[in-house]
């Protein structure tokens, strides 16, 4: 779990079974393991009312482990973008009593939470657990373009090409960290690039 630095930097917990009538999980890659860990603590029949939206990623692991939980619905999508319409539709039709659990990368948690906030769920009532890559979703504060899967510091904006200092300053509305030009005074100054959000 990432250390807390500034107030807006999200802090994640450990998924635990909540009282509720329906349980909606959104996870990517190793986030599946957070769900199977929760299953070990869940009461019998918990997954009979569960809907899992899972993005396995390139390696395609953990699908069998989720199938073994026998959830009411298990959806697999190639990317979060492809799963988003399903998530939005599910939230739009949901009633109070639905509990939301998000697990996996920060990009997945942030974007699923963004959809949930739009549907009227308070962020404090959402269970989150960070698993897997620390890669960040970064908004360039200059061109407003969003670059996915940023692992380096500084990082190059994939839209305008500026070299960005990736800050811990996080926007829940955008589900993105803020990237600020690191060499605005002298563009010829190029600090070394390190891979730190692996």
């Amino acid at each position, binding site marked *: 779990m990432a250390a807390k630095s500034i107030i807006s930097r999200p802090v994640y917990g450990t998924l635990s079974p*909540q*009282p*509720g*009538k*329906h349980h909606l999980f959104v996870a990517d890659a190793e986030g599946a393991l957070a769900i199977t860990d929760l299953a070990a603590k869940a009461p019998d029949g918990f997954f009979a009312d569960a809907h899992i939206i899972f993005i396995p990623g390139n390696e395609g692991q953990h699908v069998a482990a989720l199938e073994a939980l026998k959830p009411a619905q298990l959806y697999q999508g190639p990317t979060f973008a492809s799963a988003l319409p399903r998530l939005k539709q599910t*939230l739009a039709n*949901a*009633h*109070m*009593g*639905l*509990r939301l659990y998000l697990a996996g990368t920060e990009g997945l948690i942030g974007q699923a939470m963004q959809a949930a906030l739009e*549907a*009227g*769920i*308070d962020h*404090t*009532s959402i269970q989150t657990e960070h698993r897997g890559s620390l890669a960040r979703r970064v908004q360039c504060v200059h061109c407003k373009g969003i670059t996915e899967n940023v692992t380096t510091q500084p990082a190059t904006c994939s839209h305008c090409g500026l070299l960005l200092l990736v800050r811990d300053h996080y926007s829940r509305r955008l589900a993105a960290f803020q990237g600020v030009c690191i060499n605005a005074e002298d563009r010829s100054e190029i600090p070394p690039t390190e891979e730190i959000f692996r």
Partner: protein
Amino acid sequence: MSTGTTKLDVVVSDVVPVNELVTRFHFRRRDGQLLPTFSGGAHVVVEMRDGERTRLNPYSLMGSPLDTREYTISVRRDDAGRGGSLFMHRHVRRGHEMVISYPVNLFSLDLRARKHLMLAGGIGITPFMAQTAQLAADGGNFELHYTCRTASLGTYADLLRQRYERRVRLYHDDRDERIELDRLLSSQPLGTHLYVCGPSGMIGWVCDRAAALGWPAETVHFEHFAAPQPGAPFDVTLAVSGKTIRVGEQQSLLEAIEAAGVDPPYLCRGGVCGQCETNVIAHDGNFIHNDHWLSEEEHRSCKKIMPCVSRFEGRSLVLER
């Protein structure tokens, strides 16, 4: 900030009997100015000069927050109570000059909600009178379920039905009508917030069912006006002011402290807001904690007390006041 220090000089502009138990009081400012703005769910603490004694009771503002020319409260007469509501019913007449606190809201609407589901029992309807007026003016989405003993005790039920029609649902105990709570809670769209005000049994029932059915605690709001419980008299030493006082049977510790000329902060006088929290310096005896503010651990630690509702039984008690 303490409402004990910010007060409004008002005159009773009207007294209207509503039914056999409830009377409505209207207040205007003595200087003719507008009253302070408030939001639905707010209460004021009304000061009653009852002979030697000053009674302070909180009452929800029930008028529309859009009209601050006057404040209105509805007081249910409690013949077995400590006397505040009886004083209002028996002695307060139009033209009386009174002092009330600035409004305080410990039961406000969460305006991020997509829908507001309100459950009222008996006189617990009063905060919803203001909240529905506030929401209706903004085109807000709400639904009110109101339980009362009989139709004649359904205070403002007719008015609410007339104003909001099918958004108001009535239940009468004498006709065996009961809220189908589980079905009601489970059919609410995502983003609904729940508000409940009524007898403590009703609040407990609704909060328990909501939690069991998966309503996050952040979406459940309740207002609890607990009057201080009477008990055996006890003596207290106030270390800071250097006074020793006696708390009477029908008096709360907070009232006894105030009667001794000390002016502690307060907001709700019902054990929920935390304003009057006081440190215990020494004690020999047992605390009777009646508040909803301190944690169980804090209750056990015997280091803090909420003087608005809690009592003490024992030999000696020293408080930091």
